[in-house]
């Protein structure tokens, strides 16, 4: 490797790790696990999408509880805003920029997707849906 190429490689590596979204190994591990599940369910899986995640977050779903047809029913349409449970308790913003520890505890992520997907959609969420939501909220 010539010195110039070495410097380029070093620069590229530095830039890669300087990206804030790459700075959370626990979140990346959760997304990696979901990506593996998505690939297993559908070999044509080509990665998560923040755009799909946003659509899913804002969509009015059917099949779940009438009181909570959408993620936004409790979390509000703005992920950087504080939400409120049906019982009136404040929910810290889901946006990672506002609540940095979001999506870094695999057990907590699994627990809340299981609960809320059942409440809102009346079914479990797929690995793609979960990964899309996490990707969307990580960029907020």
């Amino acid at each position, binding site marked *: 490797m010539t010195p110039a190429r070495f410097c380029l490689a070093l620069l590229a590596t530095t830039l890669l790790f300087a990206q804030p979204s790459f700075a959370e190994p626990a979140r990346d591990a959760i997304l990696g696990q979901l990506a593996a599940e998505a690939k297993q369910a559908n070999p044509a899986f080509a990665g998560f999408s923040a755009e799909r995640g946003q659509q899913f977050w804002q969509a009015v779903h059917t099949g779940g*509880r009438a*009181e*909570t047809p959408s993620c936004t029913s409790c979390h509000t349409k703005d992920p950087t805003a504080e939400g*409120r*449970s*049906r*019982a*009136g*308790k404040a929910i810290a913003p889901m946006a990672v920029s506002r609540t940095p520890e979001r999506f870094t505890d695999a057990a907590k992520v699994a*627990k809340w997707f*299981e*609960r*809320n997907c*059942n*409440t809102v959609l009346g079914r479990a969420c797929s690995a793609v849906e979960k990964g899309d939501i996490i990707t969307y909220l990580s960029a907020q």
Partner: protein
Amino acid sequence: MRLLPTSLFAAGFLCLAATVPARAEGGATVPPIDNPVVQKECGACHMAYAPQMLPTRSWQAIMGNLGDHFGENASLPASDGATILAYLVAHAGDAPSTANGRRFMRGIPADATPLRITDTRFWKRGHNEISAASFGAPNVKSKANCVACHSGAAAGQYGEEE
């Protein structure tokens, strides 16, 4: 002089009545919840309610149906569920070791299993002057939101407040 003991008793009673009406009037104090799993899991969507305010059978029914917890799926890993149920049962209003639990249990028929503290006579009598509009106010939202008015509720202090 035969009347002296009676009048002393009456005077004593009046003094007592004059000094403690506020406590008799309303409010309740229970020990704060001292189990971290109960505090965390029961306090996620609402404050962790005082186990003293419902009987054992109510907590068993609630913990046995977390898949439909007042319209929410609140399912838990089995080990956490068992930890929480054991704590709730040990501190229920009718548990032998619960001090002053009887006042919360009064008026609950033996064959009834209330699932909401707000359905008990104790709660209703303490809130009979509160309007439906007050409970529906945006900063309250629900009767389930004790801390909206009882700021010390999470620490077991359910005093009367403005």
